[in-house]
């Protein structure tokens, strides 16, 4: 299973498209990052559109406790009547005075701030000098012209790397923002296997940020961390190559790859994971009864598409029609491609109208897509799974594998339940 299967998709020619991309920009990552890093504030330097996006993407669920905001550029900031840097310094000073709990402040670049070439890295240096050591100010770009959806998290973590302290310790680093409960499960499994201490990037609080160095080895938990991977490599750390820990198989392969790096035999891993793995397989089997034999089409969204397609085809018996990713990172996604049986179209980028033509032509049983497309496709009689739920829901490792499978099964089960009333479902707004 570890060796590239002769039927894998690694050599499948990739369909590359450029046209309208129906995707979020990297600012969206703030919605989960501000929850993960409990003493961080994310200040977007942008326009009313950026503020509106965050509000719309976040919904009103987190209204009560915003640890993010937008410094909205106004006419006078653009026309040179006001020095944007002076304005920014003033807003940051006001913000920090009001929020003494903030230890890390991220200045997040946006499309407008990139286009007017506002230098946020210099601003971050200047503001760190002014407000340090209590507050560390960092910057990254979450702009749509540079980042697609989850690449915002990648840019944020990559911005953290150069500031991490140096160490010579041989330690394992887990990279990727996971819900705390999932992260704790992973740390617990690794400890039982005999790997400790394990550090996490990002840490939940600023003072717990890991140190790294040439003896650090790291394992990515998310498939969209290409820039962070490059930044860690530049610091001399070494990546453990593995499929991503989705599903029972993915989690096992990931743990075994990590164990191997620390000289621990796969049999030890099998022994430790026997119980949670059996639980995961049982939970997956329940959802797989609905999913088996169904055809799935992935629109590009989060870069989770390849690992999820691998999970759904190998562990849930689904057939992939097209697997589309906003960006195909050959190095990180290669192990996934090896495991996916030949057959599906592998595509990168998007021309949404052409892609919808293919959805209409192939009429998959389930289409994974963004919120802008889901209801229109449902109204045409095509079942959908909102892609954004896959990044907002705990889905990694054994204990969540059943939840992950049922996220895909639920729309199909719901369709069956409502089947008799199908005509009524079409009565949506014109």
């Amino acid at each position, binding site marked *: 299973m570890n060796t590239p299967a002769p039927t894998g998709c690694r050599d499948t020619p990739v369909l590359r498209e450029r046209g309208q991309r129906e995707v979020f920009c990297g600012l969206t990552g703030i919605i989960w990052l501000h929850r993960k890093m409990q003493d961080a504030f994310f200040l977007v330097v942008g326009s009313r559109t950026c503020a509106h996006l965050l509000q719309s993407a976040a919904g009103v669920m987190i209204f009560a406790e915003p640890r993010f905001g937008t410094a909205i550029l106004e006419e006078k900031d653009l026309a040179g009547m006001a020095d944007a840097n002076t304005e920014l310094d003033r807003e940051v000073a006001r913000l920090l005075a009001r929020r003494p709990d903030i230890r890390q402040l991220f200045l997040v670049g946006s499309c407008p701030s990139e286009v007017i070439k506002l230098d946020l890295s210099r601003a971050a240096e200047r503001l760190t000098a002014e407000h340090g050591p209590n507050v560390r100010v960092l910057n990254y770009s979450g702009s749509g012209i540079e980042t697609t959806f989850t690449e915002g998290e990648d840019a944020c973590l990559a911005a953290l790397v150069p500031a991490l302290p140096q160490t010579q310790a041989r330690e394992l680093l887990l990279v990727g923002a996971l819900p705390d409960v999932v992260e704790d499960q992973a740390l617990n499994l690794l400890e039982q296997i005999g790997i400790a201490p394990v550090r996490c990037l990002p840490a939940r609080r600023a003072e717990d940020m890991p140190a790294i160095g040439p003896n650090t080895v790291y394992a990515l938990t998310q498939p969209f961390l290409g820039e962070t991977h490059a930044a860690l490599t530049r610091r001399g750390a070494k990546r453990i190559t593995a499929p991503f820990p989705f599903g029972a198989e993915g989690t096992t392969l990931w743990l075994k790859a990590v164990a191997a790096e620390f000289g621990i035999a796969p049999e030890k891993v099998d022994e430790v994971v026997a119980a949670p793995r059996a639980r995961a397989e049982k939970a997956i089997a329940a959802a797989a009864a609905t999913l088996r034999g169904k055809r799935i089409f992935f629109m590009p969204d989060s870069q989770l598409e390849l690992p999820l397609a691998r999970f759904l085809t190998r562990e849930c018996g689904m057939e992939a029609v097209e697997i589309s990713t906003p960006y195909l990172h050959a190095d990180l996604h290669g192990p996934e491609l090896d495991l996916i049986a030949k057959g599906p179209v592998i595509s990168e980028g998007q021309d949404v109208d052409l892609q919808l033509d293919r959805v209409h032509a192939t009429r998959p049983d389930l289409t994974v897509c963004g919120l802008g497309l889901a*209801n229109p496709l449902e109204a045409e009689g095509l079942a959908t799974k909102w892609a954004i739920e896959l990044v907002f829901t705990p889905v990694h490792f054994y204990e969540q594998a059943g939840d992950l499978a049922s996220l895909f099964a639920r729309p199909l089960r719901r369709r069956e339940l409502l089947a008799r009333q199908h005509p009524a479902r079409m009565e949506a707004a014109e």
Partner: protein
Amino acid sequence: MKLAVWTYEGPPHVGAMRVATGMHNMHMVLHAPQGDTYADLLFTMIERRNHRPPVSYTTFQARDLGADTAGLFKSACQDAYDRFQPEALIVAASCTAELIQDDPGGLAETMGLPVPAIALELPSYQRKENFGCDEAFLQICRSLAKPMDRSERVTCNILGPTALGFRHRDDVAEITGLLSEMGIEVNVAAPMGAAPSDIKRMGAAHFNVLLYPETAESAARWLEKEHGQPFTKTIPIGANATRAFIDEVRALSGSTLPVDESRLRQPWWAASVDSTYLTGKRVFIFGDGTHVMAAAKVARDEMGFEVCGMGCYNREQARPLRALAKEFGLEALITDDYLDVEAAIEQAAPEMILGTQMERHIGKRLGIPCAVISAPVHVQDFPARNSPQMGFEGANVLFDTWVHPLVMGLEEHLLHMFREDFEFHDDAGPSHHGGHAPRADTSAPAAPAAAAEGASMAPPDASPQQVAAAHENVVWLSCAERELKKIPFFVRGKARRNTESYATEKGLNEISVDTLYEAKAHYAR
């Protein structure tokens, strides 16, 4: 530069999208970076639309900026025309595209498309969503509405409904029915529901009914000037305003047909003895100017409430709102900063808020019931049932929705009489709401933490400290504090505030149980 945490209005191009999405056979080409397509989900999720909004985005990225973004726009325009074959196109730029100055209007003009390409100038760094609606609809009318003969029968146009509007769907149906009762046919309702070919024949109407000044006042004024069509000034929200609207329409149309009021229940519902408890309820009203002004009159004149504060987030309506507030003896709050609104509500300590989804959350935090009367919208503002705000059925809906969040009259008495009852107690809230829970379960809600968080976000000059500071020389003696706690939660804020004001007025610096009851007698009505 201004720090915003939550905003009442989106950028102007979202307003233009609301106009385009409401229409048929119209397509919008938006020069915008990757990511701006998030706006689609507003329509498909919040409003549950079954079609993608008719908008093509250029979704340029960094690599395109060095190359040919203008070419990208032209090919997006051509592709959109070829694929969707609209009767007309709207072309515009979002905030980022405005900076790169490709001039979508000029580019579209050079393309020789066989349909009108209507260019919009949307200054993203100065204006907001409502302006975008208003401007887009104005430019569509200017480009397409042609002079023509009036229809033989008396007809009117309905102006203002858009996609993502607060109850626009139901208001249009209600007012169309009312007009039909008066013998007046609707020539065109626009922008929502109209095609460019319908806009062309708007000139056939004898007059216009302007339902939403926020989205269509400029078009109404232009149609009045260019096509000689007068428009109605009364917004038919509430029973009184609906009657005034009917009078206005009669004056414009010459209609003399009687209007059946038998469906109107709101006046009797307000007059019946069960509603006595509503008398003098202090309400704070915030939202878009039009809905706030209408709600203030309904609250005072039709519900018997006391309006203790009002304001709007769209400064375009600041002038008439200020004038109305003055008539109510109030100073209008004109701001789009929800922290200012929160501070004002906290200070006014109303018994109820009539607001937007933002005020609903402020109310949750402060423990004040809230009914939603205005955009910005939320998925809950698109009920499956018919639920207009306008016309006689709208008046009925207002009564129901405004009363729903309150503790009901008889229950108020039960709370007074049986304060320590396991079922009727302070923490339970109104018994017809889901939050009605046994006391033990409500011991550690998340609200205090959230409130603290919210308060710490407030500007230093507008936080709760100021409320305290207003009475900083007044100290509650512990016996009075205990007595205050015996007063049910829904009037406690009012009692505290009245007692403190009374003490300050009398130059007292301590509040005893006697002070509390003296204040009660002083304010008794």
